């Protein structure tokens, strides 16, 4: 019995001593920080994709509380995260429209040949800086998969030498957009399915020579499409995603076969 008491006393005493010491330390060396930062960090998806424009989820969490960053910047988190953030910060914000990335080029190897034999680093930015890229079309997808490597969720697949986005996997972080040296990737509303799969600003004859599925600037689609939802930008037809477009005629009538439904 004495032993039990002795044991209890010793351990208890040592514990008390240590606890006291720590209590003092905690008091005198305390560092203030907002516990909500940690809380927000826990709610964010943790993909650190950088889509919000900050260095990572933790940086965004800090920015929301300390720098007053908008709370609807986290695309991967969607409505759920936004709801939580609104609860914590007391702010309200609309859910940003669900957008997905799309590579506006349909000229795969069977349509657009190579114009020289590229030998070097397998990276689009490197290829672009070496002889201007080896694709016949100087606007088309080079196919060295830089965007695919940059995608944090593996949503971009290389098919027949060009990049294709799996729209259901895309978390709209925008990492791919930043890597494409030819600026072919756009964020478009998920709901939209009709796209002009070409980005060539060249004139018709040049496009025709370079690629079998390029936009030749014939302007047929702009006449067919309702309320100017397809417009010409120079020699290129561009979908205006702010306006409704659901018209199969543009797809059927396109002589370049570059308007498709995805």
């Amino acid at each position, binding site marked *: 019995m004495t032993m039990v008491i002795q044991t209890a006393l010793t351990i208890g005493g040592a514990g008390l001593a240590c606890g006291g010491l720590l209590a003092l330390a905690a008091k005198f060396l305390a560092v203030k920080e907002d516990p909500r930062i940690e809380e927000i960090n826990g709610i964010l998806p943790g993909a650190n994709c950088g889509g919000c424009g900050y260095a990572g989820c933790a940086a965004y969490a800090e920015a929301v509380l300390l720098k007053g960053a908008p709370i609807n910047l986290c695309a991967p988190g969607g409505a759920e995260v936004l709801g939580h953030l609104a609860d914590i910060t007391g702010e309200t914000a609309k859910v940003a429209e669900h957008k997905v990335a799309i590579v506006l080029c349909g000229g795969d190897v069977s349509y657009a040949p190579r*114009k020289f034999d590229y030998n070097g680093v397998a990276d689009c930015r490197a290829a672009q*800086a070496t002889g201007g890229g080896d694709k016949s079309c100087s606007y088309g997808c080079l196919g060295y998969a830089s965007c695919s490597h940059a995608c944090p969720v593996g949503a971009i697949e290389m098919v027949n030498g060009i990049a294709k986005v799996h729209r259901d996997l895309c978390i709209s972080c925008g990492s791919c957009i930043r890597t494409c040296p030819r600026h072919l990737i756009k964020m478009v509303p998920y709901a939209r399915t009709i796209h002009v799969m070409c980005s060539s600003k060249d004139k018709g004859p040049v496009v025709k020579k370079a690629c079998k599925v390029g936009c030749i600037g014939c302007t047929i689609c702009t006449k067919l499409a309702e309320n100017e939802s397809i417009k010409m930008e120079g020699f290129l037809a561009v979908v205006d995603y702010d306006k409704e477009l659901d018209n199969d005629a543009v797809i059927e009538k396109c002589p370049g076969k570059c308007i498709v439904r995805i």
Partner: protein
Amino acid sequence: MGFIKAKFNAPGGVHPAYHKDLAAEQPIAEMPLSASLVVSMSQHLGKPAAPTVKKGDSVLRGQVIGEAAGFISAAVHAPTSGTVKLVADVATAAGPRATAITIEPDGEDTWVEGITPCPDWHQQDKKEIVEKIAAAGITGMGGAGFPTHVKVSPPPDSEIDTLILNGAECEPYLTADYRLMLEKATEIWQGALIIAKALDAKTIYVAIEDNKPQAIAAMQEALPAEVGDAQVVALKTEYPQGAEKQQIFAVTGREVPAGGLPLNVGIVVENVGTTLAVWDAVVNGRPLTERVTTVTGGPVAKPGNVLARIGTSCADMVEFCGGTEGPVAKIISGGPMMGFAQADMSGPTTKTTSGLLLLDPTSVHAYESMPCISCGRCVGVCPMNLMPNELSQFLEAEDYETAEAYNVMDCIECGCCAFECPAHRPLVQHMRRGKAQVMLNRRKQAS
């Protein structure tokens, strides 16, 4: 008075096979006008020139067809008289697109009015000289194409005491500068004196690699009596002796600070071709409309040094040199160490095209993406004392912060590392891409 030997030698360096014998003994030959000339608005570092003519305009030789668009930019002139056929954006070999003006010559080759020779350039003061250089659209003709009028008008707080004429021509195959030094030594010296006057430089050195004894002798002989402190310096034959920072060190022992410019150590370096263009502009009043290009390489039937109008297509130049014999696997604008490979021969020459090199399939080097075996050769040969082995690995892993911390921005892209690499890694391409990305990140951060 003999020439002096360089007292110093920069770190690193390699000894590629020179192949200068192909074209070295061929005197400069003037080429007839092509059927069409394509003049790029982006032949220099900095902002592309702004076109001042449109389709259908007729132009005269020496007429400004592109205005300098900013301080670091250069004017572009019509290389001959004729009609503007097209003004269009074209892809350049280096990547970015640029406007180019296609001119169909009328065969008259009429000079624009207002070309006034001024044989006694001594009458002109510093300001006039700089203005004439700017008006003539002269850019560095060694390869980088930095606008010369910017170089010869240093900021007022920097004192330039030395002018170095770069006649090293350390790139294998190329002999254009060599021929110029043999054939135009007197004019080059006059050009040097003009630049020295603009800079207030007291000392002039002409740096030539010691594998060109004839050029050294020619420049030595032509040394004008009127000049006080001028000297021909023989550099050890080693690539890259023609690189600015390395040459400055070899000649004067001064180290240009990392990230700095030669004027930080009171020096300006000018290529001999540029110097000749300055002479032409100041004494003859003529803008830059032609240059000497070495057309060489195994498949070229009669390699030679060609004086051609700017905008002449590569194919025409090769045709002038007897066409090709055997297969051509690689077309390079410039030398083999720093030149740009071209997709085909349709591209035009520019103010910076010092050479046009064709390689047959056996002399093409293929890059592989083998892992680095840490042999350290790239570290030993890097003239900037960098460690290309690990830089390339950081860049492969897209770790730009580390690469920047380890001085990737100091890389001069001379190619020594990739030349030596037994694993055949595309080291220079990694560096180039890394530098571009770091610049991009810096700009993003600044904004």
